[in-house]
């Protein structure tokens, strides 16, 4: 069909392209590099190449594919590792491709693998778009629900149980005399949100196992959150923790313009880790998209849309899905790079003017919904994006645009990270607008959460204020009650908020356990205050063995922690009392 007229970085201009459409996917040159038409002018098409254009020549052929950039959705997707264009990196590896040469191809869903399909509707039933017609046990943790594509529907004319590939026909529908053949695979354009019947309020708590998140700044299923922070402050580790332990049905990890080694680290750790609830391998509920920083820049743009499309697809089955994107800044930079090549009018700091709306169009695809079709069901997509501000300065455009969109912010603090206080999420500047909407849910799990949380946050706030005075007069000049506040808030920071992602037990904390720990520290506070009033002093409380014991709660296995904490409380009652001349 067309041929190349000009190549400039990732932008290729082709001529003789009449009849193509904007956003159509094209194949460029002998190697068939994937590209996407982003503009048409007469018979010329402006194409952004999703692969490295080095070596292309004017005159090389450009073929249209007739379709726009779409995801393949169906059995075989879970546990896969894809690049930004949904090439299966595992299949490529199996084919001996340790390095990704340009133009290599692989199917997203395996074509030869057979899946056992069990219908959930019968001949004669009427099914609308989005309705579930059958199931496939894809992994031990997820049942893949086969749905009628949103734009189809009718009366079931044929459907039967059996083993099928994703291209085999599993059902026939009829509508207005027209027959529709359904396979287990759908294709969906990645930049177009999938439809649902109704949005729902976000009121269910997403349990992540991370104490500072769950307890202090809880996230709701269907919520949208951002984690901004300079390099090395803990964005990636935090996102990896989320996809490891979140109590969702399925998680999607999008590595967008980040490191290969940390991708490998995540992949390997998922092979070894098991889901705390079911004991099954975490791989059975994960999808990875790995478009590392050295892979083609343009495909970064696709990677995030690909991820969110997959998330919506599983949401539509009635699942709670979490998507994390590391890093949305690299995504925005990809837009900037392409914009620059197209000589578009740059906005702030060279980013295209549409950067903010594109970010919003991604985050807006989060939410809790009533799904399309029957049976009636609810699903959710929760989105958390890392933001990597240059120089760690939050006033830059990507951070600022993101803050306008999201409802929870986990702000990472370089100072905390430098002191190795992890997660380095600042308790003074982070917030969650979901704290109220999930309160009922939290208080159902542990009565009294709202009060204890407020008390703990207040104490940390007071500590920050006191800190300024300490810097002027020194800790010894403070009255005993303030010294106690410093001691207790330090315990809150170090023994509760600090959480080691690499510690076998500490890595995941249930809400119940989190509550026990905060209660212990608050109890220490109460007892110490009483003892102070009776003439005790803080230096002696600090030296008390219970302080070290509280700090070592982290080592106590979940099975025995409640018992141990109750014993510790008893010990505190005895030892934290003022005696003549001091503490026992």
């Amino acid at each position: 069909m067309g041929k190349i007229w000009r190549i400039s970085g990732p932008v290729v201009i082709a001529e003789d392209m009449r009849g193509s459409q904007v956003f159509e996917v094209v194949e460029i040159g002998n190697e068939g590099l994937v590209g996407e038409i982003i503009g048409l002018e007469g018979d010329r098409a402006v194409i952004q190449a999703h692969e490295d254009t080095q070596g292309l020549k004017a005159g090389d052929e450009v073929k249209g594919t007739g379709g726009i950039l779409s995801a393949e959705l169906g059995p075989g997707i879970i546990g896969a590792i894809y690049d930004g264009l949904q090439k299966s990196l595992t299949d490529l590896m199996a084919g001996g491709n340790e390095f990704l040469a340009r133009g290599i191809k692989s199917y997203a869903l395996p074509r030869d693998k057979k899946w056992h399909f069990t219908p959930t509707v019968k001949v004669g039933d009427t099914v609308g778009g989005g309705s579930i017609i059958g199931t496939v046990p894809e992994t031990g943790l997820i049942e893949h629900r086969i749905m009628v594509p949103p734009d189809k529907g009718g009366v079931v004319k044929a459907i039967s149980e059996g083993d099928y590939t994703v291209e085999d026909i599993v059902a026939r529908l009829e509508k207005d005399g027209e027959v529709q053949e359904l396979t287990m695979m759908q294709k969906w354009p990645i930049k177009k949100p999938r439809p649902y019947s109704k949005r729902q309020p976000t009121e269910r708590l997403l349990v992540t196992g991370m104490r500072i998140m769950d307890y202090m700044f809880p996230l709701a299923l269907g919520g949208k959150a951002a984690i901004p922070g300079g390099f090395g402050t803990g964005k990636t580790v935090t996102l990896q923790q989320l996809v490891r332990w979140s109590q969702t049905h399925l998680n999607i990890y999008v590595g967008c313009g980040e490191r290969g080694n940390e991708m490998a680290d995540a992949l390997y750790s998922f092979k070894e880790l098991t889901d705390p609830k079911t004991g099954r391998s975490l791989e059975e509920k994960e999808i990875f998209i790995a478009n590392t920083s050295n892979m083609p820049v343009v495909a970064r743009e696709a990677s995030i849309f690909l991820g969110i499309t997959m998330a919506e697809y599983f949401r539509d089955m009635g699942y709670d899905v979490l998507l994390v994107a590391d890093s949305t800044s690299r995504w925005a930079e990809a837009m900037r790079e392409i914009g620059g090549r197209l000589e578009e009018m740059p906005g702030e700091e060279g980013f295209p003017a549409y950067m903010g709306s594109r970010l919003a169009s991604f985050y807006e695809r989060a939410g809790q919904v009533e799904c399309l079709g029957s049976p009636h069901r609810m699903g959710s997509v929760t989105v958390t994006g890392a933001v990597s501000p240059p120089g760690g300065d939050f006033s830059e455009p990507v951070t600022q645009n993101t803050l306008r969109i999201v409802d929870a912010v986990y702000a990472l603090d370089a100072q905390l990270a430098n002191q190795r206080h992890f997660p380095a999420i600042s308790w003074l500047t982070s917030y969650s607008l979901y704290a109220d909407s999930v309160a009922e849910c939290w208080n159902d799990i542990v009565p009294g959460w709202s009060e204890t949380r407020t008390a703990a946050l207040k104490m940390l706030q007071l500590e920050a204020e006191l800190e300024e005075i300490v810097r002027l007069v020194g800790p010894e000049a403070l009255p005993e009650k303030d010294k106690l506040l410093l001691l207790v808030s330090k315990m809150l920071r170090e023994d509760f908020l600090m959480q080691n992602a690499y510690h076998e037990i500490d890595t995941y904390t249930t809400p119940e356990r989190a509550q026990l720990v905060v209660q212990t520290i608050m109890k220490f506070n109460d007892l110490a205050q009483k003892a102070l009033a009776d003439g005790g002093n803080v230096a002696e409380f600090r030296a008390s063995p219970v302080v070290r014991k509280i700090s070592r709660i982290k080592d106590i296995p979940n099975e025995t922690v409640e018992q141990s904490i109750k014993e510790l409380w008893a010990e505190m009652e005895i030892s934290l009392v003022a005696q003549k001349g001091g503490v026992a």
Partner: protein
Amino acid sequence: MKSAPLYVREGRAINEAKGSLLVAKGIPGVQYNEMVDVRLASGEIRRGQAIDVSEDVIVVQVFGGVSELDLEDSAVRYKGDTLRLPVSIDILGRTFNGIGGPIDGGPPVVADEFLDVNGSPMNPASRIPPAEFIETGVSAIDGLNALVRGQKLPIFSASGLPHNQLTAQILRQASVKGAEGKFVIIFAAIGISYNDADFFMGNLEETGAMARTVAFINTASDPVIERISTPKLALTAAEYLAWNHGMHTLVVLTDMTNYCEALRELSAMRDEIPSRRGYPGYMYTDLAMTYERAGRLLGKEGSVTIMPILTMPDDDITHPIPDLTGYITEGQIVISRELERKGMYPPINVFLSLSRMIKEGIGEGKTREDHNNVFMQLYAAYAEGCYLREISTIIGAEALSDRDKMYLTIADRFEAEFISQGEVRRTVEETLDIGWKLFAALPKEELKLIKEEFIEKYLPSAD
């Protein structure tokens, strides 16, 4: 043996020449990013690259600029290929310039292969996580910010600080347990002074390391454009030795600040829209293309470890060069002027330093079982000491409690005994034992981050 093709096309119609760009008439078959030689009327040859290719015109960036070029009598010769490095095992022990030509007086390399210096991205699914400890013999690194095979860990320094001394010390001392014979150094000098390059080469020769080194030298007086290709050549050599010959390569790139300056210069010549402080918007991606070549591969013996050195302009860690580097590398070792002024060597600021791969590389069977705990407790104790030091500058140390005074002493001793080790080499066990010696000065209940069993086993009795 194969030989590289010379030229495949030649064009004489040059329409325009300005700055470093030359606009020539389009010739069918010219590839995007193809290498070009421009022959001037005088016979002088300048290198260039086709950076915008269309049917009508080809824009060539001429390295070294277009001065003295006349539109009538010059020719553009297209090589039909991008830059390639001839490789074979015989590159070991050799020294090359920034475009891969030998400069050690030896013969050209009889090549097994001509490799595209840009390489190809590793398939993330084929990687295996770096996990084997490299002992550098430096406590601040081995103990607190360990380097592992396949990692990219830069040294952030600034002008006038002893990064060369430290790098030379690391090169001299580095060892990979159990694979000593397979350890090689790839050294790339990028726009550094002749003296500095000479210092490194002399060091490598003195210690007898030259036979297991490949060097690529671009000094300050060499062409700026070759600063761009120098690290790519070094990585190409490293990949070849790692993936074809199972070697563990440590690639030292110094000074990457010069690389970034060269990138900025080229970008300005191309009239590109600059991003922060004049550096091109694609600098993150460009640096990532280099640094991401570090790693390990499933089923392969070797590894590529990268240690870039860079000098932070104005000692500013938020400057785009260290900032973007930090966003790509797996941590950083930061050299501090303040500590250097205190007379410490190596003056490593351990708060600003970080190794993201440490947890994989340390512990039982790798270094020692107590390593992780010692590492965390040392950080906590030093942080506390530094905080109190700050307070005591205002209120005076006398106003502190006894406990707090104890932490002040710990911070001082940590700097003197642990960090400031001088040019001696320490094993990782020696490093950890120094940590324990410091802990002995604290009451046991302060050791909150250490398991009871390790305290019993390793804590020396207080004296």
